[in-house]
């Protein structure tokens, strides 16, 4: 093979690797989520219910990498965001669990830099409230199965439920459990 052809090939390869350094599959996934649904600014309150790690991973487009993130809703039928829910992650290897609270739209996230746990993980959600008799209560919903490696709740928890999807994450099956 002549040196000229080799040089041309090398140049082509370099050009190709440069062009394809963003994965087209990933780009499509990001694009499929569309613009900010409510026209909000990017930040902790945006894109509730979406698979956050699709954009918050090493592939971007966000510069902030998350380890886990998602959105917690009230019940099966009531899509009100749950504020102040504790989302608790417990690894199988027995190391200490860690928890994070949901914000005003029900979103939570932990950045990769602040997440020491290894998969697989158990996850549960806990909500402290005061019942109608004035007594403090805690409602806990635990996911029976475990998360193998995906930190985005919404990859498995999206509506409608189907063969490979559970439906949104909710804290209680019956919204009437909580006072208005």
């Amino acid at each position: 093979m002549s040196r000229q052809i080799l040089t041309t090939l090398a140049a082509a390869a370099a050009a190709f690797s440069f062009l394809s350094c963003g994965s087209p599959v990933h780009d499509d996934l990001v694009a499929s989520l569309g613009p900010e649904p409510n026209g909000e600014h990017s930040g902790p309150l945006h894109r509730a219910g979406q698979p956050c790690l699709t954009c918050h991973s090493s592939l971007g487009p966000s510069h902030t990498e998350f380890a886990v993130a998602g959105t917690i809703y009230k019940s099966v039928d009531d899509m009100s965001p749950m504020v102040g829910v504790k989302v608790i992650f417990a690894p199988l290897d027995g190391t200490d669990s860690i928890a994070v609270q949901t914000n005003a739209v029900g979103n939570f996230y932990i950045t990769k830099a602040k997440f020491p746990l290894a998969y697989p993980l158990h996850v549960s959600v806990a909500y402290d409230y005061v019942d109608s008799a004035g007594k403090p209560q805690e409602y806990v919903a635990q996911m029976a199965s475990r998360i193998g490696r995906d930190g985005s709740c919404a990859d498995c928890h999206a509506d409608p439920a189907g063969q490979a999807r559970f439906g949104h994450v909710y804290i209680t099956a019956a919204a009437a459990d909580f006072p208005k």
Partner: protein
Amino acid sequence: MSPRRPSSLLAALALAVAAFAGACAGTPNAKGYMQETEALHQPFIAGDVAPAIGWSCGSLDCHGTVARNMRIFSQYGLRLGTTDTPGGMPITQSEIDADFRSVSSLEPEIMNQVVADGGAHPERLTLIRKARGTEHHKGGTIMVPGDHLDTCLTTWLAGAPNQAECDAASQPP
């Protein structure tokens, strides 16, 4: 590149093909599976091996997805029935059979050999090496010799699955 005599190339190819065919020797049954591997089908069902694999390997983000090989159907993961959902009804017979096909079609010749040897040296199978994490596995180390899942799988490969261990490997907390 220096020109080669085609005859020596052909001879080398023929040899390679013969060697490869030898590696596949075994008795395929009517379904086209190796006879001995098919012999693991009933024990797979009777020993509750599928729920154990489903629980440990089949979450929707691992082998419970159509995007990855060794596709596993299970109660808490991917469902085969179009109206079934993860977390819903227990594993179905069709799902168990599909799981058996997924697992036994990975390396039928080697599995055949392990079965012929009464389950000795199961680590010849990529299935076992990956689950033990002794070979690169994106899902990490899922089992270690002596634990519920490892005992379930290795006793199954020996033809007599320890159902209690398989059940213990498929329990929600």
